[in-house]
């Protein structure tokens, strides 16, 4: 035997140790965001590495700065966008999965092509269009825009979950004597509920994080958190504690989502590679 048992075990532990170190280093920026958010101004300059004294003053200041209005806007836009997209995509996904619709493969190509397209290319005409229709700077405009953006992906994702249910299930229900509405709402939708939730979460994260459309189609009153964060860029002398506090409020829900539905998120993330 070339390798001894001892060496084998040593290697195994070493591998895990290296991995843990790499990942800790990798995630250190997150550590800084969270510690900075709770640091006093004095400690920020004197001691960049640890957190000795916890304060909430950064959050108070973030509130004064309008952070919670921005978070509220983010919530309104996200909920609206996800809701609208979901409503439309469940029906479309069912149809795409179950019927021989001409150009079915176009859906796949369409999603790929929206991924190819720089959002800037789309936003210019919409900017002009929204201005003419009076939608620029309104919640409605942003919600419509985001629903459109998440629609193709949402349809694809729910469709892929429906595809996993054998068509025999629908046919069995029809043979039992049920109507199409019953099949859709009482049989198919309950069966793919986890998938629907996953696609909702995925759309929600996308909309929550989106920047280009938000930057150009929102107004001071409707701007979501991403735009608020970017506007800090123009200031002189950063108040890092305040920025960190806003970021913590902004990214914490996402981190929680990641842990709740990680398996499904992965499915969306690796779209087109794992399932083909």
């Amino acid at each position, binding site marked *: 035997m070339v390798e001894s048992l001892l060496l084998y075990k040593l290697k195994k532990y070493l591998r895990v140790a290296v991995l843990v170190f790499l990942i800790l280093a990798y995630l250190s920026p997150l550590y800084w965001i969270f510690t900075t958010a709770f640091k006093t101004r004095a400690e920020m300059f004197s001691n960049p590495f640890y957190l000795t004294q916890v304060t909430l003053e950064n959050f108070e200041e973030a509130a004064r700065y309008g952070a919670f209005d921005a978070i509220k806007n983010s919530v309104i836009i996200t909920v609206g966008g996800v809701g609208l997209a979901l409503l439309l995509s469940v029906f479309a996904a069912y149809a795409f999965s179950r019927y021989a619709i001409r150009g079915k493969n176009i859906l796949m190509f369409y999603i790929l092509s929206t991924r190819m397209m720089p959002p800037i290319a789309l936003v210019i005409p919409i900017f002009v269009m929204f201005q003419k229709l009076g939608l620029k700077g309104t919640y409605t405009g942003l919600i419509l825009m985001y629903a459109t953006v998440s629609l193709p992906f949402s349809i694809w994702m729910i469709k892929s979950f429906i595809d996993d249910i*054998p068509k*025999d*299930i629908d*046919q*069995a*229900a*029809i*043979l*039992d*004597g*049920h109507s199409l509405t*019953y099949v859709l709402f009482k*049989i198919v939708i*309950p*069966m793919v*509920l986890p998938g629907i939730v996953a696609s909702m979460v995925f759309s929600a994260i996308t909309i929550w994080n989106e920047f280009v459309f938000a930057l150009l189609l929102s107004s001071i009153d409707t701007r979501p958190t991403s735009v608020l964060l970017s506007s800090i860029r123009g200031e002189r002398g950063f108040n890092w504690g305040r920025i960190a506090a806003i970021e913590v409020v902004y990214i914490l829900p996402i981190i929680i989502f990641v842990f709740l539905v990680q398996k499904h998120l992965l499915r969306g993330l690796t779209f087109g590679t794992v399932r083909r």
Partner: protein
Amino acid sequence: MSDYFLELRNIKKRYGDKTVLDNISLGLRRGETLSLLGPPGSGKTTLLKIIAGLERQDSGDILMDGKVINDLPPYQRGVAMVFETLALYTHMTVYENIASPLIAAKLPKEVMDKKIREIAKFLKIEHLLERKADKLSGGERQRVALARALVKDAELYLFDEPFINLDAKIRSALRTEFKKLKTTLGKTSIFATPDPIEALALSDYIAVLYNGRILQYGTPIEIYDKPINLWLARYLTGNMLNELYGRVVSQENGVAIELTSPVKRKILVKDYAPNYVDIIKELGVAGTQQEIVITIKPSQSTIESSQECSGLEIEAEIIGYENHGSEILVFARINDTVLKIYSSRDILNRDIIGAKNKICLDLTKAVIYDKRTGRVLGDT
């Protein structure tokens, strides 16, 4: 007017440029069980779905009680079906699954409950009623699917390979149970399966499907005793058929077969298979030296050396065996052909592997095929 309950006339179906069903015509009387036997992809499922109305034929008619029902939607056809995938509603309980067709029929609650409990008792799944359908074993799932179909007061029951994913042992137990059920209820049913034993055991009639066509139609015994072509003969025995090759020659003392494989020998037909004399004679007279395949099932030959052999005797080397308990299936090789013969278990009393042994093939029970066309000889 025929007395058929269900009749199919020239059913055709294509998917793209692939013909799935080609001119299928069949009839079925009330109370009968018909098996659709065929390998995967032969069109069994499509045919069942067309009968159920879940798919539409490209041409041809479906008749029930003499009336064309082509345009009748599935739920008006009085048909229940067990799908190959079983198609259980996994998010519902067993009770809710069985209730599904009754809910659609808008039955009163009490009637529904009574029916569900009756059928559950009948199929021995009462204890599972509150269980979620995805928490069941294979055999249990199968019973639930069966219950959901049987609870419906249908005129015709369709079964699409319902035992396909089960262990052989559970499968044969369910098969017998199923046959009992069918006999008790006396319902008309169609049963699709790729397993010849299932088809033989379960049905009154068998239609063998091959590439979307009906190859042979008849009772199980008719089909097993005289398969219409070589492919079917092999399929029915699970490729355990013994095949001898030869050509027909005409001689002064009668017509003979000149065997070419696995042994070279000339045999007189009247000595070995008097029942074939007339059929073979026609071929011999033509002087074409027609090539034929003589097939003998493993159970129609013997390997015991003590017995007198009245058939064709061949010496071969035993290379292996399969132990079926009371019987032994022996494999013996001669000139690259492996002969399969059932024997009693006494043969294992000695070390048989590698031994030469005399094998006796009873040619009177053979079925003979034309080698070129593969069709059975003596078929009228």
